[in-house]
């Protein structure tokens, strides 16, 4: 079961997270049999699942000097689509570059079908669609894809056949004669995807593949990704938008600050978040001391109001120095979405003078941010 949501307390780096997908259900296998081989009509396509995981990351960490890019990530993927979502700088692209063997982990190991991701042997099984928008601009789309096929080591004729099949697959067969430099963003994305599919890899690592694609193209891509998954391929697809990935797969990994903050279906993540007390700091403007001579009136008024909310499990009044202009209140609350809705209502009704509101668990905040956005959309 892909329910391995990290507990917020361990989100600081104590415990690695695990993710596992297994998509060899009867339904998908039946569907796979109906789908023709994507690139080599007539050639045999094995749909038999390998016993070993397609991708296995074990406690992978990567630093850029003093900055940590990926922090203790453990990941195990077999077949199917996994969405990787996170904001800019969350570590998605770094993780993908590590998986594709462009970067080497400082700690931990990454294996693709049992081979070290840095090795040449692993690259035979990986198709990578990078986010970087760089090409051999002087080439036509067809020449570019064919060059990539030849660089895989295919003979000319087979490279041509695979190129045509890949271009057909991404909807570029009729438009591939033009120079790449004249392509729109969407066309460039399609060419990048075509080169990733050429050698029929077991693992497809796609960094923002839907970026710049029009709605029609998106639905084509979504269909293609599902077809590939049905063929037993393992797809790891990153995106900024949870909503986008939700249409594609229900198996999501959320990255924040180099860590996988949550893994599982969106519903599972929401459920776990609902049950997990979130720590929030609310600063109210300083007012006169209360009866006890220590806590301010406004601080106590807010605490009283908060305790009336059904999701609040604890309130703590923190001391502030005389120089500070605010009095902080720490709140622990379950069911974040409902809590924030009620908090907003409370603030508007009671006219608390809130100077600042901050969620103290960064990972949870990231997850929450995505989920709230996803639900509101």
């Amino acid at each position, binding site marked *: 079961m892909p329910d391995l949501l990290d507990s917020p307390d361990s989100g600081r780096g104590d415990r690695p997270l695990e993710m596992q997908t297994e998509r060899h259900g009867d339904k998908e296998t039946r569907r796979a049999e109906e789908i023709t081989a994507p690139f080599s009509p007539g050639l045999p396509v094995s749909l038999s699942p390998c016993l070993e995981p397609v991708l296995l990351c074990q406690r992978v960490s990567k630093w850029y000097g003093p900055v940590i890019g990926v922090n203790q990530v453990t990941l195990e993927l077999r077949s199917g689509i996994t969405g990787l979502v996170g904001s800019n700088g969350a570590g998605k692209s770094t993780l993908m570059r590590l998986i594709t063997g462009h970067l080497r982990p400082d700690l931990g190991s990454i294996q693709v079908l049992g081979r070290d991701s840095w090795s*040449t042997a692993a690259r035979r099984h990986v198709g990578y669609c990078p986010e970087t928008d760089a090409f051999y601009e002087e080439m036509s789309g067809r020449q570019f894809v064919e060059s990539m096929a030849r660089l895989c080591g295919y003979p000319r004729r087979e490279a041509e056949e695979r190129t045509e099949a890949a271009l057909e697959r991404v909807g570029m067969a009729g438009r591939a004669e033009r120079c790449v430099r004249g392509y729109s963003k969407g066309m460039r994305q399609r060419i990048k995807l075509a080169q990733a599919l050429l050698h029929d890899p077991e693992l497809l690592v796609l960094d923002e593949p839907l970026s710049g694609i029009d709605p029609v193209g998106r639905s084509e891509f979504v269909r293609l990704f599902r077809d590939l998954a049905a063929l037993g391929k393992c797809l790891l697809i990153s995106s900024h938008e949870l909503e986008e990935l939700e249409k594609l797969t229900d198996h999501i990994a959320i990255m924040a600050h180099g860590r996988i903050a949550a893994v599982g279906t969106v519903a599972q993540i929401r459920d776990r978040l609902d049950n997990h007390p979130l720590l929030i700091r609310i600063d109210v403007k300083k007012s006169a001391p209360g009866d006890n001579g220590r806590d301010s009136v406004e601080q106590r008024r807010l605490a009283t109001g908060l305790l009336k909310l059904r999701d609040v499990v604890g309130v703590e009044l923190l001391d502030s120095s005389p120089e500070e202009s605010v009095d902080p209140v720490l709140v622990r609350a379950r069911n974040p979405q409902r809590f924030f809705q009620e908090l907003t209502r409370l603030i508007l009704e009671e006219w608390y003078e809130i100077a600042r509101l901050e969620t103290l668990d960064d990972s949870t905040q990231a997850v929450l941010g995505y989920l709230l956005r996803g639900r509101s959309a």
Partner: protein
Amino acid sequence: METGEQVKREEKAAEKATSSSSVTLSPCHPVTLSRTRAWCYLVWLSWQRQARASQMVGIAVGLLVFAILLVAIFTAMGAWSMHQWRWPYRQGPTFLQWADEIQLLMSLSDSSAGGQGLQAAIAASLRGIVETAGFAIFSHWGVFLLFLSFLLPLFNLSFATEALGGEREGNNLLWLLSRPLPRSAIYLAKFAALLPWTLGLNLGGFGLLCLAGGKPGWLAFRLYWPAVLAATLAFSSLFYLMGAFFRRPAVAAIVYAFFLEVIFGNMPGYLKRISIGFYSRCMMFDAASAFGIQPERPEIFLPVDGTTALAVLLGLTIVLLGIGTIVFSRSQYQEIV
């Protein structure tokens, strides 16, 4: 009859299946991908892409054209001989006129048969020096100063730094690194693709320069081309290595070629032996020693013989390539944003 045709069809189908089964798309089975084929294609692709190299190459070719024109003008002016040289400078008779006058004066002072023979020999040797001095002059100005110190490093750096540096700056290296080719093979393939360009430009450019130099030029080409070849290999491997090390290799290569090489090359004693230019010159001095070409002050220059110099340059090429292969195989290249 039908059965026979059916059997044939089945045989054909079996053959087809056998031939096509060499390519399998299963993750659990090997796929017929040939590294050698991929490597050869990468050499071809890189060679083609090298042709699109940057402004640096344009500048290098422009400078070559300019240098050839300059040499051609000097050749037309007869600058590669001592025929026009005068003593006192610009005012006195030419050196050949001096030879005639010396012979005349000596014949007046000694009219014996032996004396006349000696006078003729002295005059002939004087004329010989004047005639053959063209090669020495061309070697000094055209080869050592213009070509070896300036054009050759420039030609090499313009192509060699572009080979990897251009891919890195254009963020295209990731396409190569995504392919199932060993990194060491990628490094060596790009070097193999680079060589036709650097060798062609250096040997070709040197040949054209010598052609423009007339007779002494041709003699220089016949004697010096092995040194140019060896120097090209060494410089190419060095500047190519810089592409694996530095994000902006052209800057590092310019600093090396036009500052460090000059400083090392003019160091006294053995210090100059860390310069590629030193060994190239040694090969040239060795090749042209029969024509009296030698360092201005051999006791300071401390040359090595031609064979040693060649061995050092070739050895250096191999060592630099080895280092580059290791560095490239271990490096993690990030996109330049």
